[in-house]
């Protein structure tokens, strides 16, 4: 039988499936009972965070930074952001939808379902990138909004204990996440002298190293940042970011070319969506050059932006 015949035969066989009206009615009844249950309990079944949810997580935190702890204001601004974003693939999500379907079940899950063992599993899932750091921030934001600071702290410590940190990038990503979640106690636990000693300053590119230093400074670990900077400046090792050309002394010297980042790279570094980065640029908070959607942001500007956020947070402004 030719390939086309086999495909046609399969299509005909599939057409004979799910034709029983009683079975379809039974499936409809199951769906109806699920919707009724959700309406009765006031919350939908907890959705497992997928890619879309992770994007919301980044957006949510974005808004949290600006709106402090006013839940209503946070959700309202979030809804505005999400509605324009979602219009492309799905109907816009509304405020109530976010509140009931995402935030409240999330808090319930972490509060009621995640016991100590569950927290360990969840933390490992984050480190293994099954869930992603975006979800972690989302969870902590949800917990803190709900006034469960203690659960947020337990989760952050669980993450620190179970993180396998192999590279500077791993350390930076975790520190960055903890900073964004204001988990400064967990940061102090993480930054042991052994960890600082283990950081390989020779095989790290200048942008990655600068990012680490900014995050350390934002976390209040200024002495560790100074120690590392001194080791880095005196290492004189080839910089992978400069095509392996050897440098000696300070990596960044007068006359060195400025490092420019694409919006996607900035989004990755700030753990935001590209759309949020565009909004920062539009609002003037993040200086960029270029026109329309072809923008480049200097690495220094990203560092300054991060520092400004964390300094503001540290002083309570």
């Amino acid at each position: 039988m030719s390939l086309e015949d086999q495909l046609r035969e399969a299509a005909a066989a599939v057409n004979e499936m799910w034709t029983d009206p009683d079975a379809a009615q039974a499936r409809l009844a199951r769906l109806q009972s699920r919707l009724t249950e959700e309406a009765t309990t006031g919350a939908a079944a907890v959705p497992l965070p997928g890619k879309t949810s992770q994007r919301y997580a980044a957006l949510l935190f974005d808004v949290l930074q600006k709106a402090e702890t006013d839940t209503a204001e946070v959700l309202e601004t979030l809804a505005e952001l999400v509605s324009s974003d979602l219009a492309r693939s799905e109907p816009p999500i509304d405020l109530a939808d976010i509140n009931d379907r995402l935030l409240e079940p999330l808090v319930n899950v972490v509060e009621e379902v995640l016991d100590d063992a569950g927290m360990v599993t969840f933390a490992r899932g984050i480190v293994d990138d099954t869930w992603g750091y975006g979800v972690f921030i989302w969870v902590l934001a949800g917990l803190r909004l709900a006034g469960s600071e203690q659960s947020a702290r337990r989760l952050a410590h669980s993450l620190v204990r179970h993180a396998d940190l192999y590279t500077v990038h791993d350390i930076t990503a975790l520190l960055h996440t903890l900073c964004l979640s204001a988990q400064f106690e967990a940061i102090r636990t993480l930054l042991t002298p052994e960890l600082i000693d283990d950081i390989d300053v020779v095989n790290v590119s200048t942008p990655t190293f600068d990012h680490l230093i900014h995050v350390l400074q934002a976390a209040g670990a200024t002495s560790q940042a100074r120690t590392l900077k001194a080791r880095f400046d005196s290492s004189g090792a080839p910089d992978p970011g400069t095509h392996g050309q050897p440098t000696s002394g300070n990596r960044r010297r007068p006359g060195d070319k400025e490092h420019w980042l694409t919006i996607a790279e900035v989004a990755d570094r700030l753990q935001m969506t590209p759309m949020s980065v565009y909004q920062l640029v539009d609002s003037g908070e993040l200086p960029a050059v270029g026109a329309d959607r072809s923008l480049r942001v200097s690495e220094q500007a990203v560092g300054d932006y991060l520092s400004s956020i964390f300094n503001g947070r540290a002083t309570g402004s």
Partner: protein
Amino acid sequence: MQPEAEGFSDFFLHWEPQVRRYLIWLEGDRAVIDDAAQETMISAYRYWEKVKDLEKPSAWLFKVAGQRLSDAQEARGRAGVSTDPQDLPDTASPGGVDEYALRDDRLAILDAVRKLPPQQAAAIALQMQHDLPLDEIADIMSVSTGSVKTHLHHARKALKSLLVADGGEL
């Protein structure tokens, strides 16, 4: 159902089987198909005010079905396959007949389709199962018509290779 959405039941009875017939080309795990089909229809219900007015709901449904299938596959990857008998998919019709087992031979080619890259498998499914024109397939897949042709061409080429490699008959 929480507030009865007018016309939704008829919509469900007509389109839910179509969604399943699309998904079976992309996924062999019956439980995942069940989950993805239900989540797709839940989405249709939640956005019923918009969906009910769509001129061609098939495009919206198949696009959402693809997204829900990815979510369900991701969830299966995290949670593994359940061994709880309560979680077994309902494969039997009221008469106690397993719809899948009945048509095993005729459905064998779908195993090869599911091994294709997702875009190619989706293009083949939409063309062969739902007989959609290229422009509608392009709309559902969010690609150009030219890309759809390319996916279909590569899909058929790959299927022939897969069948030959498996010793299948052509």
